Structure formats: structure tokens, C-alpha cells
């Protein structure tokens, strides 16, 4: 700390510091002064929370949309249910619009137009991410549902279970399991996309870095710092997902 103060005084005096001293000074300034590492840590906490919320809601939205679309497509020709047709239309519009517009624009619309009066930027950001993710997840899950053997549905129905029960308890669990690698990928994309909530004021990892370089006018260390943090997080979760997948694969064998 003393060393930092001395170097800071020198830097303020306009002295040109040797490389290592400058490195030490800037590193200290970006991460340690005023317990700034706490801000990064909070940022990581928010990033993970937002990712978790967005993933959970995204999967819920995704499942609902996927089931509606599959249910609509599986109707017998000539027996179309108009209510289902309506909801299928809504789902189609949803996926088309969400997948057809940039994430950043959606984020701004959610933050500055739809929830313009809300101060809870992090939650609004999480919601915007969920809605975005749901559209992609729905397509993943739809693929999973269609990949489940038709015999499973027939078995469920032949036991007297209705369509919804068969879907929810028999088809969707198997579909989710089949698409787990793809969902893991979606999770990692989400983890990185949380950085976008900074633009509407969500206090996430990037927001912490911006706050700090806004004070110090030194961008390199905070930005590289958070880049490393994102990378480590992603590598950790990739490893974890790989482990989970292997576990599931093991219990499937036999």
C-alpha cells in the first residue's frame, strides 16, 4: 500500500515510471485500491445470478413454446384446434421477432421503453435475457421433443394419460436430457451475454469494470481483468457440464 501511494504520487507528478513499477501501480489501482476487488466480486455474483435466472426462465419459456408448437404440429389434419392455432401463432411471432432482432436492441427496448420507469435494472436485464434465451431454447427443445421416439407418446397415451401429462412427464424430461449439451452451450452464451445488461445499468461484471476505469482513466487492466474472469467462469462451467454429461451417459448405458 505504501509502495502504491509512493508510485501514485510519482505518477501524479508526471514522472515516467519503469515498466514493472507502472504495471504494479496500475494493477493495484484497478483491483486492490479501495477494496475494488469487491466490486468485481459483486459483479461476478450478479453475472451468475442473472445467468441462472435467465437460464431458468429461458427454459420455462422455451418448454412452453416448444410444447405449444409441437402440439399444434401434431394435430391430425382436419382437426385443427383454433385456440391452439392462436397460441401457435403467438409463439411463431415471438421466436421470429426475438431471433430476428439484435440482443442489444432488445435490451435497450426492455430497459428504456417497456420498463422505462423501473429502477431495478438488473432484474429488467435478466428478464430481457430470459425472453431472448427462451426463443432459442424453444427451438432446441422442439428438436429434442421431436427426437423422442414416437412409441413413448403412444405408450403414455395408451395408458390413458392425456396429452399434456404425457408431454410433461414422459416426453419433455427425455427431450431435455437429449438436448443437454445444446442447453449447456446456451448457458455459456447467456453467461457472456449478461455483459449486455450493463448498457441499461445492470450492475454486472462489465459494469464494475466500467465504474472503475471511469474513475482511474485506465481501461486496460479492468477490461483484461474481467475478460479473464469471464474466461475462467466459462471454462469452469464447460468442465462442469462435461462432467454432468458423462454422468448422464453412464446411467444411460446398460
Amino acid at each position, binding site marked *: 500500500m505504501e509502495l502504491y501511494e509512493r508510485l501514485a504520487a510519482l505518477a501524479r507528478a508526471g514522472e515516467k515510471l519503469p515498466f514493472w513499477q507502472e504495471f504494479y501501480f496500475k494493477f493495484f489501482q484497478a483491483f486492490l485500491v479501495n477494496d475494488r476487488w469487491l466490486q468485481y466480486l459483486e459483479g461476478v455474483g450478479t453475472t451468475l445470478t442473472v445467468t441462472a435466472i435467465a437460464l431458468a426462465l429461458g427454459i420455462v419459456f422455451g418448454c412452453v413454446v416448444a410444447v405449444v408448437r409441437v402440439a399444434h404440429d401434431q394435430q*391430425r389434419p382436419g382437426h385443427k384446434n383454433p385456440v391452439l392455432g392462436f397460441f401457435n401463432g403467438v409463439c411463431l411471432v415471438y421466436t421470429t421477432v426475438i431471433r430476428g432482432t439484435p440482443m442489444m436492441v432488445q435490451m435497450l427496448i426492455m430497459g428504456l421503453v417497456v420498463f422505462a420507469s423501473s429502477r431495478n435494472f438488473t432484474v429488467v436485464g435478466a428478464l430481457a435475457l430470459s425472453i431472448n434465451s427462451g426463443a432459442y431454447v424453444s427451438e432446441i427443445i422442439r428438436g429434442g421433443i421431436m427426437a423422442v*421416439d414416437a*412409441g*413413448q407418446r*403412444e*405408450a*403414455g*397415451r*395408451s*395408458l*390413458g*394419460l*392425456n396429452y399434456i*401429462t404425457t408431454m410433461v*412427464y*414422459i416426453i419433455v*424430461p*427425455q427431450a431435455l*436430457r437429449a438436448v443437454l449439451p445444446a442447453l449447456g452451450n446456451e448457458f455459456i452464451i447467456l453467461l457472456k451475454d449478461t455483459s449486455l445488461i450493463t448498457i441499461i445499468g445492470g450492475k454486472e461484471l462489465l459494469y464494475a469494470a466500467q465504474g472503475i476505469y471511469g474513475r482511474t482513466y485506465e481501461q486496460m487492466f479492468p477490461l483484461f481483468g474481467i475478460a479473464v474472469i469471464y474466461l475462467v467462469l466459462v471454462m469452469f462451467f464447460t468442465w462442469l457440464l462435461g462432467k454432468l454429461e458423462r454422468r448422464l451417459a453412464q*446411467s*444411460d*448405458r*446398460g
Partner: protein
Amino acid sequence: MIEVKHLQKHYGANEVLKDIDLTVDKGDVVVLVGPSGCGKSTFLRCLNMLEEPDGGEVWFKDTQINAPRTDINSVRRKVGMVFQHFNLFPHMTVKKNITFAPVRLGLMKQEEADRRAMELLERIGLADKADTYPGMLSGGQKQRIAIVRALAMDPEVLLFDEPTSALDPEMVGEVLELMKELARGGMTMLCVTHEMGFAREVANRIIFIDEGVVKVDKPPKEFFANPGNERLANFLSKVL
């Protein structure tokens, strides 16, 4: 118990079932045979509306099951089905496979269903498999458990759609044995199969479907001894 009148089913221009009439009484064990592609399976699947008939009537007791207002789910509870590929639920344990539907439909409490499942598993000698997943079982074990799953609903009729066709030869016996036991116990059964030995021994009627209609409907002895139909005689000469 089941009455089928002028049943028709086509896929596009392909008329699979042209005009099927059939009455099945309580306790009947009916075996359906015929050349492949003749519509035996399609016919069986029309009996619980897994395939929707394009014409005619299917009656189960006093309900017309292919009428638009019929609650098909309540009919299906009473009409069990066993599939060629077992179709056990791979993400549930054996016990859960058996108890899921009765509990979910409110027919039994979980404990009661568990007890019944264990009784049934005991009967087929697979009680030790109750907590394993279907993936760990042999084909014969899977099919016997699939039969037990259907039995757990206390059905009045069981439909078997080629129950032994996907099995290794050494496992066919155990499944047929269980089916024979059910037949002896008075269960009403309709069975699509290529197991002529089973048909001869267990069925009280064998039905030959060809060109979309029931061509022959006779007790086994007569069916094999005196086919009375050129195409059946031809078919039998190939399979026997």
C-alpha cells in the same frame, strides 16, 4: 366386449383396412395373422385410437370409441397395450414405470400402487429389478415389465402388437409364457404375432387378415387343418 363394424383406414391412396368386421367376447384370446403390410397392427391400433379409423365403428362395451365426443382416455385405461418395442419410460425406474399412470390418474395411492407393482413383479420373478432403470434390463425382461405396466391399470382387454418380434430368440419363451398365463387367467386378449405355436396353443380364435378384410376367423385346430382360403394356405405354407 369389442365390436368392430365396417372399419376402414387408409393412408393417402393406400387403403389398408377396407371393411373389417369383428366381435370379441369377454375371455376371448384372438390371434391376428396375415402377410406383412396387411394392416394387422393398424387394425389393433384402431382399437384404442392410436390410429384413427377413417370409417366404420369401433365399440368397447357400450361406448363407441371413435365417436367425436368419447373420452378416449377413460377407454384407454381399460384397454391395455403392449408394443413391439416395449416403450418403457427410460427415465423412470421399473417400479415408477408401473405405478406412474395409476397414481397419476388417481386410481390408486402411491403406496397402494407400489404394493401392487411389487406383487406383479414378484409374480414374474423380477422383484429385484424394481429400482433399476429399463436400460439395465434384457429385452425379455423389458417386455414382461411392459406387460405388467399394462396390467397395473387393471385392464379388461390387452392388445399385443407383435410382442416378441423385437426379442432375441432365447427370450421369446419367457414372454409367451407370461402371455399364456394371462390367457389361462381369463384375460381378454388380442394379439398380433408370428408365433404360430402360441396361436395354436393359446388362442381360441385365429383371424387371417388379407387385402383389408377378415378372410378367415376360425378356432386354431380348424384354422391350421382346414384353412379354406387359398391365400391363407399359401401364407401358412410359408410360415409353418
